[in-house]
């Protein structure tokens, strides 16, 4: 997982070198993306047996990162659209960059679904034979809409700056985009939350919680980007705005932790099946991710809330910590969902049963039930590079710098 974080973190220095550095970074992203595609072809031709996913843990890194990038995509759009939708002061000229980050993250989310498919060439069926009752179908629709809306919104902002689109129109678009952003997280949550088969996922809280988590990592991302781009001289954001963002991040973190607490309490209180899940998180195989999330969230919140700590580097650190905390959350959710089987009675094990199939089920579940293979990391890195590349291309090609007087 740290690879992804590294990829995100690697961006600011890349941008630092100005246009040459930017070009190099875009080139590097392109190379990684092509490499990812090559690995994806390897995965498709040689079979997904090369991934660590198996029947009893049938989703892995890709769907984890799908959830994660859907979340990341939120922040930008929301940060940018809320002020416009409600007609309040914004965060100082980062609106378009923020939306650009949303677009890039959405592309990554969609790409992660695609690389997870066994039969991507049959994707057209999604439109031909749509089962509108399937949460995955909802998500595909909402994600596509969201991507298009983000682009439209970005375009509208630019046009607005040039006086081609009215403020009212922009405001309408921003409201629609905001609704769509909330929906996209809820629907993503419902892919998991509507499955009664995984006790860990099956909670009404999952929808709002996804929204709150999305706000955490999205805000974190915008904060990091804002500081980085400021440092790179691409734009200048007032410290007050950064502090505002940080405070917001702190608040979102608190909400997210509150939801986490609610969920844990609800799972554990009946002292029934849910206890297994709480134990798995707090002291079981997922403990590093659980405590990782808690520690990172608290650390980020402390930076956000203690005035003396709100220096630029520390706030950037808080942003990164918040992003990583949510990544930990995603891992817990996805792997955790498969970590507790409904029926754990032992039976024949074959190489397609479960990742660690060469023992009994108890042994397979003793540690992390799933850990990705290098191929999966490679494909994931490619997808992330694609997203980063798109973002950097946006920075390079599009007029994303703040318009004079923009707030």
């Amino acid at each position, binding site marked *: 997982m740290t690879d992804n974080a590294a990829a995100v973190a690697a961006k600011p220095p890349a941008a630092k070198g100005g246009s040459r550095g930017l070009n190099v970074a875009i080139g590097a992203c392109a190379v990684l993306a092509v490499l990812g595609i090559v690995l994806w072809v390897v995965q498709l031709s040689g079979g997904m047996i090369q991934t660590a996913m198996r029947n009893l843990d049938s989703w892995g890194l890709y769907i984890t990162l799908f959830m994660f990038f859907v979340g990341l995509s939120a922040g930008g759009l929301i940060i940018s659209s809320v002020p416009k939708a409600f007609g309040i002061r914004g965060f100082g000229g980062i609106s378009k960059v923020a939306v650009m980050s949303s677009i890039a993250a959405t592309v990554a989310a969609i790409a992660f679904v695609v690389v997870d498919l066994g039969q991507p060439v049959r994707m057209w069926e999604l439109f031909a034979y749509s089962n509108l009752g399937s949460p995955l179908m909802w998500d595909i629709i909402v994600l596509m809409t969201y991507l298009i809306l983000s682009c439209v919104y970005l375009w509208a902002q630019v046009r607005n700056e040039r006086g081609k689109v009215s403020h009212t129109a922009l405001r309408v678009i921003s409201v629609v985009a905001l609704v769509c952003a909330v929906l996209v997280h809820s629907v993503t949550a419902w892919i998991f939350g509507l499955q009664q088969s995984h006790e860990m996922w099956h909670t009404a809280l999952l929808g709002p919680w996804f929204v709150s988590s999305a706000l955490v990592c999205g805000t974190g991302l915008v904060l990091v980007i804002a500081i980085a781009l400021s440092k790179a001289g691409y734009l200048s954001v007032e410290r007050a705005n950064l502090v505002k963002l940080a405070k917001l991040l702190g608040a979102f973190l608190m909400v997210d932790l509150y939801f986490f607490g609610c969920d844990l309490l609800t799972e554990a209180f009946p002292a029934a099946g849910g206890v297994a899940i709480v134990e798995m998180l707090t002291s079981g195989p997922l403990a590093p991710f659980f405590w990782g999330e808690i520690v990172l969230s608290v650390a980020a919140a402390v930076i956000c809330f203690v005035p003396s700590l709100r220096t630029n580097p520390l706030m950037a650190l808080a942003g990164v910590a918040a992003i990583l905390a949510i990544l930990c959350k995603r891992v817990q959710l996805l792997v955790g969902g498969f970590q507790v089987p409904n029926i754990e009675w032992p039976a*024949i094990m*074959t190489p397609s049963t479960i990742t660690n199939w*060469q*023992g*009994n089920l*108890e*042994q397979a579940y003793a540690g992390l039930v799933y850990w990705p293979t290098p191929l999966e990391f490679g494909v994931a890195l490619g997808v992330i590079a694609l997203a980063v590349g798109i973002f950097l291309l946006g920075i390079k090609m599009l007029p994303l710098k703040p318009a004079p007087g923009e707030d």
Partner: protein
Amino acid sequence: MREGKVVRVAAARMEERDDANYRRICVKGYAQPQRLYDPDRVKYPMRRVEGTERGAGQWERVSWDEALDEVAAKMRAAVDEYGWPSVALWNSYASCGVLNGSGAGSVAYGRFLSRTGATILGPGADWAQMFFAYALTLFMGNDIADTPNANTILVWGSNPTDAYPADWQFVCRAREKGAKLITIDPQFTSAAMHSDRYFAIRPGTDGALMLAMANYIIDNDLVNEEFMKARTVSPLLVKGDGTYLRASDLGITPQEGPVNPLTGQPTVIDPLQVWDAAAGAFADAATAADPALMGDYDAMGQPVQTVYQLVRGKIGEFTVDKAADICDLLPDDIEWLARTYATEGPVYIHTNQGLGHHANSHHNYKNLMFIAALTGNAGVPGGTPLGHAALGFGSFPTNPLPFVAGTEKSLDICGMYLPDIMETGKWAGKDLPIRVLWVNNGNPLCNESGRLELIEAVKKVDFVVTADITMTDTACYSDLVLPIPHVFESEDFMTMSFTPYPPFQRKIVDPLYECRTDLEILRDLSRRLGMDDLYTKTDEEYLREIMDTPANLAHDAGYDAFKDNRLVRNYTINDDEVFIDKFALTKTQRLEYYLERPFVRNNFGQEVAEYERYPYYTRANESYWENPLREKYPLFGLGQHERYHVHSQLATTPVMREIEPEPLLRMNARDAAERGIAQGDYVRAFNDRGSVVLKAKVTEGIKQGVVSIPHGWNASQYVEGHAQDLTNRYMNDFCSNSCFYDFLCEVEKWEGGE
């Protein structure tokens, strides 16, 4: 069948009256298409590469001509120098087909043996039970289909769920009618799982439990005296020499009876005597009003006593407490068992060979007969001490003459003696230089007990040839391996069957590769040996000669009927009655727990001990609690019939190995914990004879202190060694049964590999 290939196997439909009882298939049957096309099959005659060690695994393909020329040359050389007994045919139970099956009961081998007098080396497996039932007493027990008549079912020394799955449904039916199910087994089988009570007995001590039950039944007046008097040997009188008192002993001249159709001689009528308490005198057993069960009497000067009295005098030491100690059971449990056995009959004891794999095993069968005699749990619907698929032994009538082509008498001994024979060059004091070994219908170097000794003996034989369908462990130690076909590839007929439908083996597909049947091979070989007239007929002609007896034809049960129809019912089996053994075949026409004239299976001059006559318990050879060897090797060995094997058949059949990829050593979880062994660890089981490295299956499904080795796996499927390397070649010389379970060992975590 599709496009010339067998693609699926299903159970045959039977006549409606039989469908519920006898329609059957099991997991191994369903897997047959994969056995037929098993990639591991021997495809061509293979010769050990010149200059390589036997067992080194280096083979070259040869033509049938080359192969059989070599066999003929080796046989001729041996025969010229030492005579035909120097050629030995080592076989087991793989087939009992009338054309290609084991030993003297087939055209292929029967004609060859009766013409040449070559030596037969038979299996040691299962002879404890078989020798008692089929040689000493001719007591078959009730057929499995009688189980639903039982009030209590005692699964003892059998595994009707894994080893004999066709039996299980009958047990289920009985249970659904309210019968109690009890399992006595050191291993927790599926049958044990379904049982009302389960008793984890220490291996090899069942005989002591039986005698303790007998004593408890006697001491608590639970004896069915009426049954004892009328249906068992109990009131018969025994003379000092152990034989029965007959009318002639009392001065009454025997009379001539009807002519025996087999011998053509008149039978002798010399009635067995009992003491008629009503008359106060000796009387014919068949007519006495009130035969005495106990007592010493004077028969014209010689002291006699009843069988019951004699036996009671012999078994008294086996009290409930003593047996509890020996068997590692609670005294209360033994009493409960005895009481249940005596009072909740009829009791059907479901037993196969699980009681027969120790050196003391053969006594178990006398002991079982004794407790059945005491309680009347024999010869009645639902009640038998030997319950299993018995129907088959009323086999389909055929003409055995085609099995004979000469008058030579072959020496027929247990193959387990091969090491002794190779060591001394003698059998029973006479020279027996075995030079050529022809292994057929069996895989002794994988399946028999005491594998390492057998391998050493095989290595001493000049020339070893094995005919088999796959490259078995025995084939691996041969000089020449001859490919024979799967049952779907050749026509044959089996007279023995566990259903009323004798299996006619239809040729469904042509033999694959270069496979030839045993009969074809011997046909060719006999010509090379100058016996052109040994097999003059075609397979079909032989089958017709065997099957088309006038009686069979009259019942439309000849070759054509079998060939045309899918199933032909054995017309000698009574329509709807289930087979209940009412002792019609025993010499005394009574349930026999006493052997008047015990004899040994393989006579090499050994004495028959007195205790062979009566119910008895003695410890096993190696696997017993007090054995000082337990300090070094504390674990009792055991084995089992594997669910996904037919002995070593199916060892490499893909789907079976997908379900169960590798051999597992079952060991108790507490024993494993003491040794730092976790589920799925590789372990080394060893004793002074040998060792094996394999995966451990840690389970509470086996008694503490006991480990169970897997059965039927090829040497190549173990990490190192072979499970049978732990086992012992020692046999008691009374019935010469392989003692698969009679061994001790220790297990340690295996640190090699990775």
